[in-house]
């Protein structure tokens, strides 16, 4: 990475070589903790001076090593992530925090633990509903997580440091939302592909460095003259994970992707952790309730909506309506990663919801390999042709 690189260039460099900074910090004596999913509360790691690093997959990497541990018909992203780990790409890690955000995460976590040998390994058992009992249980799980971190680092987690970490991450969430404000104009001031690079860079950096990067990027994007080319369609992509620039570029060759509602886009940044007397309370509530991944069962209770399907859809997907209005979305893609059951089961209902608010939508499946690019291109372009002809 050259010293001169700033803003978007810097984000692109980090995206392309996203473990470099973690390796540098490791060499400087920091402890690096991996995490595979945005449901892991990074605030606890940061408060104890540990550096979080998201262990992403790489679509260019053919899965070979993970084959000895995982079946073929299984989440291709987790297969890919584990494959990278088994090939030693994360060998600089001092530990790993895994979480039961979905079943593939849970199954892979057990295998990850048995096939690797990090000094620290922890699994957070996360409930799948937003009931008050679930929140209580999740809070107790976060408390256990805290204790294991304290044992690993040999120091107590002071409340003020945790509060400071929450503040820093809330600032990061605010900055990402500010970045997404810049996709509201037509043409957007920043492309969906560039945002994928920025967001992936954030997950590879300590929070303070991530916030500095965001501030640089926002400043650069606000004053840039080389804005993305205006296309006929402003797309919303709804997916479990869209964290690869090549995949995003397939859509952006023919459309402006102004909203990436996935964990490679805005999903983990849309809300903020509330200030509570016990910081774990605010953290538990944020991670369980505010991140809109299909892994959480959100159907409204019968008492709220009875059997009123329209109201049920509203309670599950209503948050998208404001996005569609504010970002002037003219088409929506439900991008399914193959074998992702939680998202697959949401699709028919979400399709009905898009229909009910008059947004053309389509459903496309891909398998997180470069081989997916050509079929993806045909499906994406055909959908765009149906709405722009």
């Amino acid at each position, binding site marked *: 990475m050259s010293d001169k690189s700033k803003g978007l260039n810097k984000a692109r460099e980090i995206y392309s070589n996203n473990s470099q900074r973690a390796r540098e910090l490791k060499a400087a004596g920091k402890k690096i903790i991996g995490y595979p999913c945005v449901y892991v509360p990074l605030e606890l790691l940061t408060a104890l001076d540990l550096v979080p690093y998201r262990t992403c997959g790489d679509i260019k990497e053919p899965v070979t090593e993970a084959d000895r541990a995982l079946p073929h018909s299984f989440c291709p992203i987790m297969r890919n992530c584990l494959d990278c780990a088994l090939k030693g790409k994360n060998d600089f890690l001092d530990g790993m925090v895994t979480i039961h955000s979905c079943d593939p995460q849970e199954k892979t976590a057990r295998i990850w633990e048995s096939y690797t040998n990090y000094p620290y390994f922890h699994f957070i058992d996360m409930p799948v509903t937003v009931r008050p009992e679930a929140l209580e249980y999740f809070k107790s799980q976060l408390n256990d997580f805290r204790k294991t971190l304290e044992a690993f680092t040999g120091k107590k987690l002071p409340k003020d440091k945790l509060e400071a970490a929450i503040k820093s991450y809330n600032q990061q969430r605010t900055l990402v939302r500010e970045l997404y404000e810049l996709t509201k104009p037509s043409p957007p001031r920043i492309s969906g592909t560039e945002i994928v690079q920025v967001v992936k860079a954030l997950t590879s950096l300590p929070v303070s460095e991530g916030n500095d990067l965001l501030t640089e990027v926002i400043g650069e994007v606000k004053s840039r003259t080389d804005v993305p080319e205006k296309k006929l369609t402003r797309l919303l992509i709804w997916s479990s994970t869209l964290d690869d620039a090549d995949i995003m570029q397939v859509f952006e060759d023919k459309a402006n992707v102004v909203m990436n509602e996935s964990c490679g886009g805005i999903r983990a940044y849309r809300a903020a952790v509330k200030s509570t007397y016990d910081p774990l309370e605010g953290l538990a509530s944020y991670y369980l309730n505010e991140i809109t991944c299909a892994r959480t069962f959100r159907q409204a209770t019968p008492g709220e909506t009875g059997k009123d399907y329209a109201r049920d859809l509203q309670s599950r997907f209503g948050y998208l309506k404001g996005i569609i209005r504010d970002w002037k979305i003219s088409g929506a893609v439900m991008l399914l990663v*193959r074998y992702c059951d939680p998202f697959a089961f949401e699709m028919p209902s979400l399709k009905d919801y898009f229909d009910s608010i008059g947004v053309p939508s*389509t459903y496309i*499946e891909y*398998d997180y390999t470069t*081989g*997916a690019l*050509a*079929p993806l291109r*045909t*499906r994406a*372009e*055909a*959908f765009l*042709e*149906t709405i722009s*002809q």
Partner: protein
Amino acid sequence: MHFAGVDIGSTMTKVVLIDKSDNQLSCIKGPTGPEHRRLANEVMRQALQQASLQIDDISYIIATGYGRLNVPFADRQITELSCHARGVSTLFPGVRTAIDIGGQDAKCMRIHDGRLISFVMNDKCAAGTGRFLEVTATALGIKLEDMGDISLKATKRIHISNLCTIFAQQEVIALLSRGEKPENIVAGLHDALASRVAALARRLGIEPDLVLTGGVAKNIGMVRAMKDSLGCEVLVPEEPLITGALGAAILAKEIYTKAVEAGQVLPTKSRRLEKATFFAEEHR
């Protein structure tokens, strides 16, 4: 004024030339193959020869299909879904649902007023595509093009339980060794493929008139099996392979005419017929 549609499918390359009144001047089909994919210029040359035209006579060229990006002389690329929809509507103005079963994928399209309104395609695997029949024909030791006629001699229905192409091939071998007659097995294979494609179409919703295209539509046994599986009449064009290329040519005419009427000049590519080059080749 003349227009061209070039459809580079995974198995076959098709070129259709039309005049401004939609009359087909020529229609050439050839295998795509690994080398042919970069020889779209050859198929185009044959089509021009058939129509006694020069490349400079073509006002606008649209490429479609799996290899649409590999046609250096095409002015624009449009997906095969939109092109099939347009081509089928020209031949059957009342069409509302079209199913195209090609060598590598199956597509179901809903069409309204000649335009694609929604679609669904098979997953990336070969189940539900022409490849399913190609592979199982080899296992049976019969020619792909004979399968339709052979299946008409079937005396009983055999249920093929595997939709996976590779497993179905094994199942075929097991059935043969059990003494089942090839014609009964072929009929069973048609039923299996038809039920898979019909399930795909039902996801989209089926509305008549329904038209079946693609190489598989040339197989009379498959057309019959599709009728049974869908429970409705199935229309088949005289030449089911070329609807994509025909649609591309008609869209070329429409886009060009619209631009001319609006006083615009559409950018066009060099009219030199040269083969596509790839980055890997350039660096060699």
